[in-house]
C-alpha cells in the first residue's frame, strides 16, 4: 500500500513543477510512518482493552483519587523547585566562566541517563536516615525524607530538574549578549535585566523546560519507590499505584494508565500551540 501511494506521489510530483525539488523521499516517509505507528499502536491497544463499563468506578475510587492528587501535587511542587534552582543554574552554566563547568554540566545531566532506581539508591545512601547527610538532617533538624511526601518530591526533582536546566541553558546560550549591553547602557541593574530582558527572551524555553520537568516528575517511578517507598496516601503516586494494580487487578491498571496518559496529553496539547511553537529560537 505504501509503495502504491509512494509511486503515485512520485509520478505526479516529477512532472508537476510546483512540488519539484521539495519531495520527501519515499523511504523517509515509510520510516517516519513506522515511527509514528510505534507510538500510536500501544495507545490503541490500551483504549481497546480498557474496561469502559467499570472505568468510572475505578477512576473515582478513593485510593486512586488520592494517588492522582498526590501525583499532581508532588510533580507540580517538584517542577516549581526545579525552576527555582534550575533557572539560576542554567544561567551560570551558560554565561559564567567557572572552573569545572563541563564537569558540573555532566553531573547535572547524569540523572537523565541513570536508571531511576540507581538515583533512588544514591539518594537513599546520602539523604536516607542513616545516609551521609540524612543522619544530620534527622539529628539536627528532625527531618526525615525517606517514606515521606517530601522524599517523593526530592526524588522527582532529582530526575526532573536536568530537563529544565538543559532546555533553559541552551536558550540562554543562543541569546545575543548585545541585548544585555543595550540594556546595561539604558541603566538596567543585572537583576532588572534578568527580569525584563533575559527571562522574557527565553520565555518559550522556560515553559517547555517547566512542562518537561513536570511531566518527568509525574512519571517518576524508580527513584520514588527506592527512596520514598510505597505508602498509600503518602508516597504512593500514580505510577506506583499503576504498578501495584498491574499485579492485583490488571484491568484497573489500564484505567490508571489511561488517566495518566490523558492528564499528560492534555497538558502537552494545551501548551503546544501557545508556547512551544518555536522552541530554541528565541531573541528578546
Amino acid at each position: 500500500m505504501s509503495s502504491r501511494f509512494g509511486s503515485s506521489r512520485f509520478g505526479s510530483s516529477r512532472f508537476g513543477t510546483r512540488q519539484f525539488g521539495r519531495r520527501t523521499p519515499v523511504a523517509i516517509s515509510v520510516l517516519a510512518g513506522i515511527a509514528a505507528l510505534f507510538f500510536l499502536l500501544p495507545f490503541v491497544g490500551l483504549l481497546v482493552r480498557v474496561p469502559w463499563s467499570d472505568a468510572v468506578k475505578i477512576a473515582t475510587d478513593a485510593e486512586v483519587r488520592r494517588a492522582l492528587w498526590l501525583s499532581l501535587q508532588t510533580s507540580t511542587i517538584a517542577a516549581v523547585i526545579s525552576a527555582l534552582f534550575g533557572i539560576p543554574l542554567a544561567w551560570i552554566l551558560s554565561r559564567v566562566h567557572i572552573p569545572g563547568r563541563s564537569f558540573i554540566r555532566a553531573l547535572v545531566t547524569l540523572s537523565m541517563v541513570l536508571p531511576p532506581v540507581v538515583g533512588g539508591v544514591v539518594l537513599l545512601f546520602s539523604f536516607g536516615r542513616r545516609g551521609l547527610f540524612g543522619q544530620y538532617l534527622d539529628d539536627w533538624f528532625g527531618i526525615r525524607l525517606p517514606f515521606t511526601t517530601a522524599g517523593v518530591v526530592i526524588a522527582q526533582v532529582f530526575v526532573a530538574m536536568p530537563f529544565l536546566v538543559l532546555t533553559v541553558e541552551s536558550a540562554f546560550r543562543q541569546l545575543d549578549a548585545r541585548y544585555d549591553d543595550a540594556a546595561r547602557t539604558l541603566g538596567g541593574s543585572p537583576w532588572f535585566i534578568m527580569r525584563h530582558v533575559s527571562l522574557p527572551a527565553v520565555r518559550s524555553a522556560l515553559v517547555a523546560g517547566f512542562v518537561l520537568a513536570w511531566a518527568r516528575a509525574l512519571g517518576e517511578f524508580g527513584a520514588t519507590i527506592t527512596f520514598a517507598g510505597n505508602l498509600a496516601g503518602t508516597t504512593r503516586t500514580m505510577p506506583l499505584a499503576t504498578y501495584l494494580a498491574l499485579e492485583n487487578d490488571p484491568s484497573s491498571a489500564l484505567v490508571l494508565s489511561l488517566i495518566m496518559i490523558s492528564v499528560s496529553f492534555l497538558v502537552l496539547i494545551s501548551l503546544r500551540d501557545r508556547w512551544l511553537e518555536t522552541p530554541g529560537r528565541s531573541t528578546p
Partner: protein
Amino acid sequence: MTISATFEVAWPTLDLSVDIHVETGRTLAIMGPNGAGKSTIVRCLAGLTPIRVGHIHVDDAIWDDPNMGQFLSPAGRNVGLMFQDHLLFRHLTALDNVAFGPRARGLSSRDARGKAAACLERLGLSELANARPAQLSGGQSQRVALARALVNKPTLLLLDEPLASLDVVTRRHMRSEIARDLTAYQPSTILITHDPEDARHLAQEVMVIEAGRVVQRGTHDELSSHPATPYVAELFGSR
C-alpha cells in the same frame, strides 16, 4: 558637556590608542576599515569594556581612569547606544522599548511610559507606539531604537553604524531624520560609519582610524580635499 577621552586597549587582536574630544551638541564621525577598533571605542566609552590605560572624562566627572582606580558602570554614565541592527527587545512594544531606560532608572511604569510617549511624539513616531519590533520596517525600527537611546537625554550618544542595515533610499531619508532628531535633543554624539555621506550630513568633525591609530581628523571637506593616507583618499573618493 565635553567628552574628553584618551585611552589605549591592548588585545591580542587589537592595539588601540586614540584620543577623542566632543563638545556639547556636536557630532564626531569615526571612520575606518573593519577591525580598526571603531566598535571597541564605542564599547569603552559606553563602559561595556574597561580601558587599560588612559582616561575617559566628561566635564568634571571621571568615567574610567585605571590610574585612579575609578570606573563608572554603563548604568551610571547615561550614554545612549544604538547598534547597527537596532536590537529592540522583541517582546516589548515600541513604546515599552523606549520606556525601558526610564523604567530601569527607577521611574514607575506609568511615568516611564509617559516619558517614552513624549519622546516618540517629539520624534514624530507616535503612531508606532503599540507596534512590536517584528511589525516595524527597517527605517522605523531604526528610529525607535534612536528614540530608546535618546529618551534619557544622554550625555553621550553612541551610534554604531546606525544606517548600515538600511537600503540606499531609506538610508538617505533616515539620514535627514536622524539629523533632525539630534537637533531636537542636542546630545554630544559619536557616529561610527563607513559612509562619507553620513559623516558629511551628520557630523561636524570626522576622525579616521586605521589599525588602532588616528590617521587624520578634520571636517569632511578637509579630509576629502587633503587626504592623509591612501585609505582616506579612497574613502572620500579623492583623486
